[in-house]
């Protein structure tokens, strides 16, 4: 009974989400990877908000088959209480006609079983896709590492043809997934051969100073966070901001 209802709910929400995204056509930034998704999401969201853009990001853990459509539709979860799902189900179609639907969606995508990524991407087509890292974490649902990597391969293949892939060059598994991909690829990381290089991370009493080099220009920023994952998040945020500014400029020119 419960499984059957979950199946129906899952496909109902997917259908509504497809319609909503078709009608409102937001720019989608997808974030995937074993680590650091939330911090990257926060970084991008706050940058876009500072630019005065209308942004929606999925809350923590709303990144799976049911959570993701709820986040896109800006609806709460009923969790395990049937009663709480009624207003959610009734309210979902109204989102198709919602005014002021955000122009940008920043979505982290979770994958804990084989095929999860494919299902999530049957709802949306990202304009920018980010793979933060691939590690052994959350690997328990996969028979081997290759199958987990295949999930991220699906993401790079289902990103819009004219979209951009932002990939971690410090991880050889991440580098591999985009080998024959024709999309624009921007690599980030600590290695010298990368597009956006993290040159230095210096710990300070209040956080850390991050120095990055992107397109021959150096940029230095003091961030009030500790750990190299925040240096990654800062770098990714910078790349995405730059790319979106370009995308917006192109759209303006075309119209």
């Amino acid at each position, binding site marked *: 009974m419960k499984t059957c209802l979950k199946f129906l709910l899952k496909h109902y929400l997917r259908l509504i989400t497809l319609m909503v995204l078709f009608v409102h056509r937001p720019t989608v930034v997808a974030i995937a990877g074993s680590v650091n998704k939330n911090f990257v999401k926060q970084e991008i969201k706050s940058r876009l908000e500072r630019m005065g853009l209308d942004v929606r990001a999925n809350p923590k853990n709303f990144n799976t088959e049911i959570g993701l459509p709820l986040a896109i539709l800006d609806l709460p979860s009923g*969790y395990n209480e049937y009663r709480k799902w009624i207003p959610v189900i009734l309210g979902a179609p109204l989102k198709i006609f919602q005014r002021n639907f955000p122009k940008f969606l920043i979505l982290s995508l979770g994958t804990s079983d084989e095929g999860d990524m494919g299902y999530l991407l049957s709802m949306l087509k990202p304009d920018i896709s980010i793979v933060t890292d691939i590690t052994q*974490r959350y690997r*328990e649902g996969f028979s081997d590492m290759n199958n987990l990597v295949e999930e991220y391969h699906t993401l790079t293949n289902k990103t819009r043809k004219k979209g951009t892939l932002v990939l971690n060059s410090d991880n050889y598994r991440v580098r591999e997934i985009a080998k024959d991909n024709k999309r624009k690829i921007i690599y980030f990381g600590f290695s010298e051969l990368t597009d956006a290089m993290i040159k230095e991370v210096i710990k300070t*009493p209040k*956080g850390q100073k991050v120095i990055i080099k992107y397109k021959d220009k150096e940029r230095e920023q003091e961030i*009030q966070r*500790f*750990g190299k*994952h925040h240096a990654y998040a800062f770098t990714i945020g910078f790349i995405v901001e730059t790319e979106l500014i370009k995308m917006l400029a192109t759209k303006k020119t075309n119209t």
Partner: protein
Amino acid sequence: MKYTALTKTHMFERTKNINLSAIKQIELKASEYPDAISLAQGIPDFDTPEFIKRRVERALKRGVVAKYSLSPGLPELRELIEESLEEEGMYYDWEKEILVTAGSIEGITATVMAITNPGDEVIIPEPTYTSYREVLSLAGCKAVFVPLDEEKGWGFDIERFKKAITEKTRAIFYCNPNNPTGTIYTREQLLSLADLAEENDLFLISDEVYKDFIYDQDDFFSLAEIPKLRKRVIRIFSFSKAFAMTGWRVAYLHSDEENVREITKVHDSLVTCAPVISQYAAMGALEIGGEKVRIFRDEYKKRRDLICERVGALKDIFEFVQPDSAYYIFPKILPKVKEFFEKDTQILTGNGRIDSRKFAHWLLDQTQVATVPGVAFGPNGEGHIRMSFGRRKEDITEAFDRMNRLFNT
């Protein structure tokens, strides 16, 4: 081969001064009474929430709980911890500055072992949690008690701390919100303690396991929020109380990477890693636990109001400071109770307070209600008893109905 008993006189040096805690003693005695109601143990009566159990079931089914995790804990859990700390204005690197422990007491033990040497002194404001003293004793350190001021709602008097500092002092170790008084130390009090630690180059160990159960104010301040203090402050938090998970034995601590690196060495030698199954439970708690904590807190607030009303009604017997947090009340036992003892019973201690140990055992014998003698929480706790309102309302009501009958009120 002839076997003989060990005769070495220096055996058990480390453990000879450690006693079974007064809480466990009274619990042991209460277990002999068929109708005992325990207001003694600090455990929530709630069961672990369902969503946490489901998270554990999933991990079990996927076969990921049978092996050790990394010594500091599962990376995915530590990242979730960093995210939850960030929501509270504390910024720590999950890779190097967060350590998942087997309950808070293991974290405390590892911390004390890492930052002290035998013979060091650690200042403890008291009354406070009983096991701190035992941990210090195990580490060969001396607990130096600084009395809290009951007249000031069990707050700090910084002058008393200043007087207690010697050249052997290594740390100040406090519980905030405090068990058993339910006091929340003010920002000013904590900052003055930080200044004192700075002047005297001391560590600050802050045990904040009750920080989710605050009843009459919205904000809670921790010294771990101040970046300048991150090398000095070691903050400990447990899933036990907030998520009704006392049996799972999982907690965490965080501090600057230098401190955590050293503490991890002790942690690794004590337990290798926190139980992996419990780490998955902790992940479940952090993923979707916030709403449940609010429900628990609202329920405890109702119970706090109930117990205050009932203790207040026994105004000839008890006098109390209303607890702002945690789930304990710590009333003073008034001299009137002497009337209920036989004339030749020695019920007063040397300093004229009611002997809390005798009182608690007598109360248990008379009413089968278990409470904890205040002296178990430090010398300044003498003359008080601790009652937990972590129990069901029905238990609290029944316990006080029995006390009312005993005291003829």
